[in-house]
């Protein structure tokens, strides 16, 4: 994908395998979130080819551009963005109701994902009253309930305490392996990528500077020569 940004051009090619967690790393403003937004269809690229399980989501050459709402991507944005006016149950059910699934199917799948994310006891609590860790688990359950073809997490652990971070990391890793879906994790912390990432990719001013096994990754500042 190529996108001309204010200070540099994002020019990137990545691929993620089913069941694999790829940590997309880089300093602030290196183009990590922009990459996710382009994949999700929230930002228009200048030039790109994006495919998911063989299905073309975006190809600027022939004008293919599947709308965001039809891309079947589970995307947890920064700060989780759970809808504060809804209960936990309604949050998890949101993506299922938009697809007009049968009520029994919605109920069953919401119960399943609330159970897997250990939030069943919070079902009727308004999301605005949840803690940071609880919100993140709700956001994860909501993104996974639609049975996405790709899971994207943008700094999911940034606002969490140590205990919540570990819980969400464990849940994420288990779910990605169980469901065998590709996952892109945006983070700027090396520990996140080494703990749950299978592969890491370091971005620097829109370009891939390093790719490999997270444990072998050198310090971010030494990889990124832009500063």
């Amino acid at each position, binding site marked *: 994908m190529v996108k001309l940004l204010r200070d540099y051009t994002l020019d990137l090619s990545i691929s993620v395998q089913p069941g694999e967690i790829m940590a997309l790393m880089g300093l602030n403003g290196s183009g990590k979130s922009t990459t996710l937004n382009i994949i999700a269809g929230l930002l228009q690229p200048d030039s790109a080819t994006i495919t998911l399980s063989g299905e073309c989501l975006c190809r600027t050459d022939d004008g293919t551009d599947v709308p965001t*709402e039809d891309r079947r991507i589970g995307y947890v944005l920064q700060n989780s963005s759970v*809808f504060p006016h809804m209960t936990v149950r309604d949050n998890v059910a949101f993506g299922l109701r938009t697809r007009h699934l049968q009520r029994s199917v919605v109920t069953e799948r919401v119960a399943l994902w609330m159970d897997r994310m250990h939030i069943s006891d919070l079902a009727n609590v308004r999301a605005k009253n949840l803690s940071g860790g609880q919100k993140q688990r709700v956001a994860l359950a909501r993104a996974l309930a639609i049975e996405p073809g790709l899971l994207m997490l943008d700094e999911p652990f940034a606002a969490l305490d140590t205990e919540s971070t570990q819980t969400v990391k464990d849940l994420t890793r288990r779910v990605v392996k169980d469901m065998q879906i590709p996952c892109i994790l945006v983070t700027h912390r090396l520990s996140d990528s080494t703990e749950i990432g299978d592969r890491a990719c370091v971005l620097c001013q829109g370009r891939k500077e390093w790719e490999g096994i997270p444990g072998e990754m050198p310090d971010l500042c030494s990889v990124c020569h832009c500063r």
Partner: protein
Amino acid sequence: MLPVEGDNLMVLKYSRSKNYRRNLTYLAAGILIAAVTLYLALPIVALFLRMTPDLFFATLHDPDVASALWLSLFTTGISLTVVILVGTPFAYFHSKYSYPGKVVVDTLIDLPLVLPPAVAGVALLVLYGRVGILGRYFNMFGISIAFTTLAVIMAQIFVASPFYLRQAKSLFEQLDPAYEQTARTLGASSLRTLVQVTIPMTATGLVSGAVMTFGRALGEFGATIMFAGNLPGVTQTMPLAVYVGMEGSNINAGLTISILLVIISFGIMIAVRLIQKREADRA
């Protein structure tokens, strides 16, 4: 070092002078606050003192008063409904998209707030009047707008809508786009996102804007008398009835409607305060 008697005296004098100045400041502040409060409250109190409760309730049954009351409530209700139904999606699109001339539209939204209402009335008359720029064509099809109840509603919408539009625009601009983006990735259409996410998350502020719009439309006078005239039962709203009553034909009616408007205005202000307090508590 032991304190010297002269030093103590100086400290005492300084302390007394400081207390004196502080007391003087309190006194000046008290007088100023009392003066401003009295200036604002006395006319309202005078209005209530001028009427006895018996006379007030008796005058409420006066046909002119009842007619003005119901006409005002009817037209204001319609105006508010139109402003909410059209203004909400308008403010949403206006806040979300950039388009040529957006700054001009922004200015036009604010213009009725500073434009003298009588001028707004004249402008509406020049456009929609029987020989107006558009009005003459409506007239050819037998459609007359000026000096009808529709003109009252149009004048109210023109003058009062900025209160809602400004509020809605600002709320939509301030809402974190991540909520709407999340809804889109979860399969929600733009309309569903607006109805189920954006509006509920800004509802308290929208209601506050709607209440202010209702209040402004209810008190509208200048544009209405210019564009809609002053026909009892057709275009004579409460403020116009006050004017007619106080001209000498029915002073009690004028006073009764004035008191009613004061009560409604107080209700509106209390409602807005409660809504704002609720919003602050939520945050």
